[in-house]
């Protein structure tokens, strides 16, 4: 295969300075404090594919998304979109920014309440000089609205006249307005009811097929990920602990954390399976555990886990990933 992937991330790292103000620090003699939000994350996303990042709050999913889109400068790492190297420190060239758009979690916050829907959707076209005239702009807005299942006449309305699901449709139309081919979706359905979620997920899948979109899809909802993704990456405390294609991950998870996450999902089928009680909570990222950061919660943890940080190898970052599972007595 000679074709390069749509998105390549290599060794992405983001460190936030969370120190107290300088004077306070000097007076009380505290050292500066850093929070490593994302550490050594590498992944590739093929054209037209969906890569889903899952993990609990604080695992660094959104930080990865914001680095990819250039909203946040990366501390380290190489980002490549469709073969173009990106400089995340100094902002992306306009041509690349046009191709990458984001959909956010809360459609009540991501649409300006004082703008008409038509203007909201037309903004990316205006910003990138994509339409020569007002008339064409209106036509295009109408097309986009139809594409996401709304009425072209909705363009004159304001966001407050729409329900949550309809607003998320507007956000999708806006993301598509600049002919983007990569959509970064940060929990796009978490704020929606399940029946509305089904509508939006179906819509996104249909548009992806029709337009050949590549998606970086972030969610904490494993059922949603299972439905949307081709490849899944599981994050824990800023690191990728496992990546696999969606079928493999759900049928044969290898990292103990992935197993725990899958086990924690409430079971609709009520097979009465005995769940392994989940241990503990995600630790404070300012002061993460040594070695494998998952070891305090891990049922398999051994001495080596406290000392050495495992690297992602063959899709899993665990010293004991290929140990027989039966050795853990529940």
């Amino acid at each position, binding site marked *: 295969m000679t074709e390069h992937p749509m998105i390549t991330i290599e060794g992405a790292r983001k460190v936030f300075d969370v120190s107290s103000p300088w004077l306070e620090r000097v007076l009380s003699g505290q050292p500066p404090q850093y929070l490593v939000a994302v550490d050594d994350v590498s992944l590739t996303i093929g054209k037209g594919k969906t890569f889903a990042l899952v993990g*609990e*709050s604080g695992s660094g999913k959104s930080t990865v998304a914001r680095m990819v889109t250039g909203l946040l400068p990366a501390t380290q790492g190489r980002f490549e979109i469709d073969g173009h190297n990106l400089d995340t420190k100094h902002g992306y060239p306009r041509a690349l920014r046009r191709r990458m758009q984001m959909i956010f979690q809360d459609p009540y916050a991501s649409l300006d309440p004082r703008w008409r829907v038509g203007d909201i959707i037309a903004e990316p076209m205006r910003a990138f000089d994509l339409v020569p005239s007002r008339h064409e702009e209106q036509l295009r807005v109408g097309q986009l609205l139809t594409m996401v299942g709304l009425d072209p006449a909705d363009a004159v309305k304001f966001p407050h006249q729409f*329900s*949550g*699901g*309809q607003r998320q449709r507007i956000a999708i139309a806006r993301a598509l307005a600049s002919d983007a081919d990569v959509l970064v979706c940060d929990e796009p359905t978490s704020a929606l*009811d*399940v*029946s*509305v*979620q*089904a*509508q939006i*997920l*179906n819509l996104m*899948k249909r548009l992806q097929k029709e337009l050949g979109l590549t998606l970086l899809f972030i969610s*904490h*909802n*494993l*059922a*949603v990920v*299972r*439905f949307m993704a081709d490849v899944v990456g599981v994050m824990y405390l800023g690191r990728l602990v496992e990546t696999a294609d*969606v*079928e493999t991950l*759900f049928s044969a998870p290898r990292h103990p954390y992935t197993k*725990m*996450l899958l*086990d*924690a*999902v*409430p*079971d*609709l*089928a*009520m097979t009465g399976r005995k*769940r392994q*009680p*989940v241990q503990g*909570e*995600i630790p404070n990222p300012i002061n993460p555990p040594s070695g494998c950061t998952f070891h305090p919660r891990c049922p398999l943890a051994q001495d080596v886990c406290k000392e050495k940080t495992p690297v992602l190898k063959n899709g899993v970052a665990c010293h004991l990933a290929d140990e027989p599972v039966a050795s853990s007595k529940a």
Partner: protein
Amino acid sequence: MSVPVLEIRNLHVDFKTRHGVLHALNGISFSIARGEVLGVVGESGAGKSLTGSAIIGLLEPPGHIAGGEIYLNGARIDGLDFESMRHIRGKKIGTIFQDPLTSLDPLFRVGEQLIETIRTHLPLDEKQARARAISLLADVGIPAPEKRIDAYPHEFSGGMRQRVVIALALAAEPDLVIADEPTTALDVSVQAQIIEVLKKLCRERGTAVMLITHDMGVIAETADRVAVMYAGRVAEIGPVRSVVQHPQHPYAQGLMGSIPPLDQHPSQLQQIEGSMPRLSAIPKGCAFHPRCPLVIDACHQTQPELRASGESFAACIRAGEAA
């Protein structure tokens, strides 16, 4: 049969507005027995939380109970004056809300809040109340409770805070706990822990629980019976297994179908077309008829009552027919 802990008969809640009266709850009836967990599901605006507020007498004006009766242990509690209701809240009915940060006062140590609640409702002195608070914190699974009791809410993580809120709700050994989206703000792994704690404690104490949530997974694992609400009415009510696996009402069927399954990989999710009507424009007849795949002429005319269908009760004249 003994008297149910909570019984609601034909409850109506109205909002008077400038544009006329809005009927937010439109004849809700159900009961919860001792030790039973009733799950209440439905989309935003279906009236789930409103039912909870009506029970504890905390409807925000202009909302008010326009009809029907609410019984707690056989005694009528709707229409009680504020003072009598205050004694029931906390003592007889405990509440757990979605966001643990807003239900705890950030300026007081969790111990002070627990002790205040305990002493308001139980005849204990400061020392006994403190001992009880510590044992409550231990019950909800907070490690080293004798130390943590003097911590402030911000020193707890989200999951631990929700445990404290559960301890608060159970402080006076209530007969009924109303849990309104208790795990929605939490991560899945923590969510499972919280459900486990809630389930265990209520089973041990025989507390009746009304569990309001939009997460069918949580209901499936926790509830004994489920009520599915739509536009201010109960669309279907029945044993959890039958409602989840063999829903009778077309809305319940659509709701179950729209949940992405964990064990398969469908190319498309079943979806209910359209969205829930606004309160000001609830359709005549069956409120679900504009979105219903089984709609017939009669649905436009009459509002169907709950009737037996399969193992549950559904408010639909075509209940039980496959979509």
